[in-house]
């Protein structure tokens, strides 16, 4: 069976695993180089202490050339000229604490069990960028136990109020979902049989929805349309099998017999990269820690797990150096894969923006006073790179508005009304220092 799962927050009125799938393109759209085509968000949980990404003595904005990146970020040293480190933004209004949850990418008040109150920036960007089949694809990384128990979970991304988007945490399930149609032998046979059963379930579900009272019919209709979306996805994927075959990752032991959770983290990243390369998605959201306040990295030799990790001060701490270095190695892997994939006159990386940050500002139990970001790539030359910028007292909403300006969908503000704007020092328009 096509597997998946949903638990956790916010799914008050059930939503699709793939929002607006019906509006997705029938086949990947290949565009010429030189324009923003994709954005990747990578959020590490437990906060992102600014001292782990900038040298201590650095107070003012400056060029990165000539500077040495902090130890946790050293894997990115060769990419300094394509990097922009941003500090000084705040997210006090997002109520970060352990995690701002949907508020991290929505830039509004979030919290445990609080459903999303508006669309998040990854979803909004996915609508603004050239369309793909899956806008956006979200993956989440946790302990093995947790990923098995909750193969999908919704904590960070949303298509609108009360419309959470689920992230995938089990790579075997995600593999079947994205690449099952091109598998061979028994896997293919099962995929076909299960797809057939899903169609039957949709038919029966539809049958039992007839005659329901109006409001109940709408609610039940979401249940039925979930099957329709899934079956529609199968059909769309089957039409692009050549593209899928070209980029499908190898289904190896890491998927079926992982030694550590990091095997699954790596496999999920591979699937995310393949989905980008095959142009299945224009936005990839990676949640290391699944947007919550647990997590496990035993594969890195870290024995501490879970919530307690967040209570450790990150600067100078060996555990957090390892986790951050692992993040950065993943970012390098992403960039290398996209650089190696031609697009137009250049590579996919030329048209990509990567956003690295956290789902709860600078630390666990954060009040959101400072929220660092690292940008990689310039999305077709739209964003300034090779720079460290310290911004004085603007909310993360303004950064997200800047992203929208960068991809050609300018807005005055992002999820911020005028009353709040004054209170939180939001200014209209983009943060000019960040745009090329």
């Amino acid at each position, binding site marked *: 069976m096509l597997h998946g799962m949903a638990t956790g927050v916010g799914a008050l009125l059930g939503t699709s695993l793939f929002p607006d799938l019906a509006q997705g393109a029938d086949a990947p759209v290949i565009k010429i180089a030189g324009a923003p085509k994709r954005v990747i968000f990578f959020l590490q949980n437990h906060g992102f202490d600014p001292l782990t990404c900038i040298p201590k003595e650095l107070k003012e904005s400056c060029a990165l050339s000539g500077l040495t990146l902090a130890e946790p970020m050293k894997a990115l040293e060769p990419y300094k000229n394509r990097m922009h480190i941003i500090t000084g933004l705040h997210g006090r209004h997002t109520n970060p604490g352990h995690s701002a949850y949907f508020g991290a990418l929505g830039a509004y008040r979030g919290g445990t069990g609080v459903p999303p109150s508006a669309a998040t920036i990854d979803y909004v960007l996915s609508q603004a960028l050239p369309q793909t089949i899956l806008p956006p694809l979200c993956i989440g990384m946790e302990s093995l136990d947790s990923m098995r128990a909750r193969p999908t979970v919704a904590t960070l991304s949303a298509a609108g109020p009360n419309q959470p988007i689920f992230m995938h945490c089990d790579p075997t399930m995600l593999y079947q979902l994205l690449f099952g149609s091109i598998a061979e032998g028994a896997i293919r046979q099962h995929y076909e049989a299960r797809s057939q059963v899903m169609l039957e*379930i949709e038919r029966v579900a539809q049958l039992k929805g007839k005659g329901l009272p109006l409001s109940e019919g709408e609610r039940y209709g979401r249940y039925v349309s979930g099957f329709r979306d899934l079956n529609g996805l199968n059909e769309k994927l089957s039409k692009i099998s050549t593209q899928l075959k070209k980029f499908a990752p190898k289904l190896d032991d890491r998927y079926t017999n992982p030694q550590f959770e990091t095997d699954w983290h790596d496999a999920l990243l591979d699937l995310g990269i393949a989905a980008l390369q095959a142009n299945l998605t224009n936005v990839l959201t990676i949640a290391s820690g699944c947007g919550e306040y647990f997590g496990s990295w035993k594969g890195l030799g870290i024995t501490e797990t879970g919530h307690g990790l967040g209570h450790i001060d990150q600067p100078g701490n060996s555990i957090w150096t390892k986790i951050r270095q692992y993040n950065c190695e993943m970012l390098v892997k992403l960039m290398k894969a996209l650089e190696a994939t031609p697009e137009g006159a250049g590579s996919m990386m030329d048209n990509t923006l990567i956003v690295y940050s956290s789902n709860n500002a600078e630390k666990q139990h954060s009040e959101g006073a400072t929220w660092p970001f690292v940008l990689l790539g310039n999305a077709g030359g739209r964003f300034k790179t090779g720079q460290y910028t310290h911004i004085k007292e603007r909310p993360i909403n303004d950064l997200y508005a800047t992203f929208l300006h960068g991809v050609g969908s300018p807005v005055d503000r992002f999820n911020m009304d005028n009353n709040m704007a004054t209170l939180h020092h939001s200014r209209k328009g983009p943060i000019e220092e960040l745009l090329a």
Partner: protein
Amino acid sequence: MKSPQPFHVAIALASLLSTQAVADESLDVGAAAGFKEMVAPFLESYCLDCHDEDTQKGNVSLEGLSDVSVENASLWKRIWEQVALKEMPPRKQANQPPLMERWELSTWITDELTAVMKDKGGFIDHLRPSKGNHLDHDLLFGPLPPNLEPASTPARIWRIHPQEQLVRLNELVCLKRKYDPERPGLWTHGDHIPSNLEGETKVYFGLDGYLGSFNDAYNFGVSGFQSSLSMIRDHGLRNYSFLYTINSAESLQIAGIAEKVLRFMAYGPAAEPYQFADDIEQVSGEYRGLNIIFYKNGIYRPLTPVYELMQTPGVSDERLKEVITFLFESLTLRPPSEAETAIYLEIANKSIKELGKDEGVFVGLVPIFLDRDALFRPELCEDGQPDQYGRVPLQGDELALAINAAFSYIRPENDHLRTALAEGKLKTREDVKREVTRILNDDSIRKPRILQFFREFFDYDRAATICKTRESIEGQGAHYESHPAVMGSMIANTDGLIELILREDKEVLKELLTTNRVIYQPYTSVRVARGMTTDIAYFINRKKTFEPIKVYNPEWVKKGEEEKEQHEVTNGNQLHHILPNPAQPIYVRQSQFDNGIFPPAKDALKAITTVDTRERLGILTHPIWLIAHSDAMENHAISRGRWIRERLLGDAVPDIPVTVDAKLPEEPESTLRQRMRVTRKEECWRCHQKMDPLALPFEMYNHLGMLRDSDKGQPVDATGEIILSGDPSLDGPVQDPLEMIHKLAASERVKQVFVRHVFRFWMGRNEILNDAPILQDADKAYRESNGSMKALLTSLLTSDAFLYRKVKN
């Protein structure tokens, strides 16, 4: 505009809208009264003096405000809350609108917001559990308005509770634990699935055949699954019928779980041969270091038609039909119709043809797990004839299932409801009363729904989700690593205490609020042999010396003497300095495991004793409630104050405006009371006066619920005040939480508010004005029976709100 609300409110308007022509004695207020006729005059009379263009008090001008639109929706929502909760006009102002006028405007606003926001994310705030008190208490319990249309609940499908799903699936893979009247607190067939010591609620495969494990495997190696249905994780009631559907991700997960369940039913645990043994000591050393568990040789699971099918060569329609009928009844609690059987037979046969029997059966039977009625309980009344109000009584299977679902997640062993239905004895209100009474009086029929109500009413089970820092736990002398297990233990203890009080069934609410009894774990396990690692440590009076707790170590005890030894440890740990009275054994449901290092399910022996009522009084003073209403490092005054304001006083506080930067000053040397001085600003105090004075008496305890007499080097100030309660005899200052609780527990209004919450939980919706007679009857039943929960439930479950579904507006 026609009201889009699911609850049609009808009442004669003659006294309210004198200018309106009333053609019918009964008509829809929200629909008939438009902006010009009702809203504009209301604003003119009560609002514009302070909120016109010139005055703009609080920077709010209502002059020129037009009908509800997307642009002004947030302002109208604020007006709704202010008017419904009597925040505006200001209380000191003499010219106050009558309650019915407030209700009329509130209903108009919520109707309009629902309509205009339909395609903009929707507006359902007024239907949410947290807004139930926006309907004024005195409207419900005062004189009844004339010509009130009789109550009913909209025809609906109600998604099953996550626990309901787990209990039903557990039935398929786990042997039944028989009810033991000597140990009524033990985990029994039909009870909710207890959480494990990590706080996860899971169904485990192979629990009955569990032999043992080494290292961490006990915690991590047991294969199982959590519920795939989402649930609100916030405070308050969590399972209204309109709140949930099932999304595609959940459906996919259910499908995945279904396959695993079917395979387990057929073949047992998915384990290697070396994982089966007669004795754990037989396990070879080479396997002891693995993170796996071991099973007993033999078959330890329910043997069902799925097992029979896979044991028998070949496959026939007849055998498949048996399987389909069995699964369908297990999952929907009713037999399938012929058409349903035919559909699922066709799907299963197709799948078997495609994949062969060995695989095709498991894939082809999955759709039954996703049948509408396996995930939603229908209350549609499709066959009945509506009365003049568009209502149809629940009948047949729908009625039997509704009564059953009021108490249980599965069908009981001897299904009297189905027998009564078959014999034509489940038709009238009297029939329903007879069956409800029978179920309530039969302890062997487990009633997890009743316990679930109290969990949601008191929120104590949320304590496990409150994240505490190491410093904050160790700073109070408790043990950081043990804290999650202690929370699980305390939740189970509180479950046990509530069930005990329910068995007594006298003045239930008052007893819960004022009992001097506590249940605790009298011994520690071999792994955590430190007194501070147990739940009783949280009851400690920090002013007194703490003595070590005697340890019970199962490895030191001879077989057959476990209970005797546990009794001795219990007696040895009476802790007279904490608990002045001798303890008695009591069995409490905490674990599903019959073996293991933690208190096992079959012998979950705890102790019950009494506390000094000058220190603790009822659940609100138990550490579990205090922790559930605290945060990472300190007490949470807002959460505690809100709880009392909403659950006991029947009032509410409007949503915090987005413009408010709600933060207390960071002053490490100041007490919480001192830091909360910032809420005394005029714009804050209007709401905070409803919470802070109710919450600050609990400063008598630290954020782990331990007694204290000083805070930040200063003597604790536990004074507070009940204000704006709606009951003048309640209002006034209190010296400490104990005095406040005594006052609240004696209040008739508090009992009525409790009745309102019971109504909401069992009807799956907020009450509306039409429900007033039902609430008054229920209150009377509760009062006249000396606070019997059984009497209260019987009254509500035989009311029109429970028995009738509205199929037409």
